[in-house]
């Protein structure tokens, strides 16, 4: 029996029009990501990682090709179903944290649950629990600007987990963090991946991410260059680090 694909893309292309000049950012991406996997998407700046994320997350429409989430073609969804998918099935984490500035940590985590129709008190309890799991039990009532970058990203992780999504999409979650904090965030994500059985897809330049990934998808110029399992990876990491240093 084939493994259960939570995300599947077929011939995914995205072209932006800059004035009249077409810019082909994704040139046909076929990937399959299985339930419970931890995937890293690696590639140089401008290779199309964020664009790919936006397609997978239903945040933008592909020019060509299909995205299936849980075997549902998301192009077939109406606005309401798409919003529901974003609310319940996918959790998003951004490089810039993107917390709602007027809300406390607790309220930020509650928001997706409120949208999803959960009762206020139930949402509050669950948000508190989630914030405790990410180590912010003491900071429930702080506003984002009162928190450090690492703490904000923890809130974002708690928020992404709010509705028990099947997938977490994290676009350079450690991009704005220092080495140590970045490591903590990566391990937190890995922990959530193991404990909650949520598939995690991260885009990153961060080689620390390789250690925890089940597979790494390398993309370059809008195409998949290679896909590697962790076993093969171990040999490569040294090589890549050498590349980067040189």
């Amino acid at each position: 029996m084939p493994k259960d694909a939570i995300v599947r893309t077929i011939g995914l292309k995205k072209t932006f029009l800059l004035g009249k000049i077409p810019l082909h950012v994704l040139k046909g991406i076929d990937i399959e990501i299985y339930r419970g996997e931890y995937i890293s998407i690696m590639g140089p700046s401008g290779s199309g990682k964020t664009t790919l994320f936006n397609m997978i997350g239903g945040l933008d429409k592909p020019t060509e090709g299909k995205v299936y989430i849980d075997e549902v073609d998301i192009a077939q969804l109406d606005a309401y179903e798409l919003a529901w998918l974003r609310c319940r099935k996918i959790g998003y984490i951004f490089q810039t944290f993107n917390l709602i500035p007027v809300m406390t940590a607790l309220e930020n985590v509650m928001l997706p649950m409120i949208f999803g129709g959960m009762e206020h008190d139930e949402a509050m309890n669950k948000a508190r629990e989630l914030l405790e799991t990410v180590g912010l039990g003491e900071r429930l009532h702080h506003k984002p600007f009162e928190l450090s970058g690492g703490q904000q990203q923890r809130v974002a992780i708690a928020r992404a987990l709010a509705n028990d999504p099947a997938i977490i999409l994290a676009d350079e979650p450690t991009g704005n963090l220092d080495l140590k904090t970045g490591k903590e965030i990566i391990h937190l994500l890995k922990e959530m991946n193991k404990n909650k059985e949520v598939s995690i897809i991260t885009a990153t330049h961060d080689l620390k991410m390789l250690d925890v990934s089940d597979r790494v998808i390398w993309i370059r110029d809008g195409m998949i260059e290679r896909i590697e399992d962790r076993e093969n990876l171990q040999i490569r990491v040294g090589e890549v680090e050498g590349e980067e240093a040189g």
Partner: protein
Amino acid sequence: MAVDVSKKKKIEKQLVLPLSHAFNMSLRSIKIRFGRSIIVTSSIVLGIAFLMSILSSNAFITSIIQKGPESLKIALQQNLDEIRTRQLWLISLSLLVCVVGIINAMLMAVTERSREIGTMKCLGALDKFIVELFLLESSIQGFAGSIIGVFVGTIATFLTYLLRYKGLIWSIFPGELLIRYSVLSILLGIIISVIGAIYPAYVSAKMEPAEAIRREV
């Protein structure tokens, strides 16, 4: 039975933004961006104060004609007819300026908060939640601004009439009419604010989340 199943599915798939929650969010948005809120609100204050000063001055004159001494009646009647024609377009103009001011300020708010809007959509906000939040925010400002405007306009007019007619004013004080005009002005103030916010709210709701988040301000 089949009906039951589909109903259940609908309920399961609901997305909501409770009014109390929306109200709370709007109120805080206003507070945290106090500077800009003041600009929007003060444009409403000015418009409504102007409207109310004209309306209340009408109320005083009408009341003097009805209850005041004969000697004043004829002169004021002429005055009233003359003023009325001019007033209408002055009022319209001032309210129009109000609407434009609100549209402008709200459009600024949309660009400034584009990322926040995109994020909310990622969390499952429907377009109509975004519209709701912006309209709510604007009507709260409209309400507050109108109340202040009504006070300012009425008091200013009252003082001018008090200076001109002295004690007479107390005996003809048109309380009921003033209250009616105040309610009218406040309603109008809220309606204007909502009208001014509709277009910006629509613009913000229609952005694709990816675009909204990408846009740097």
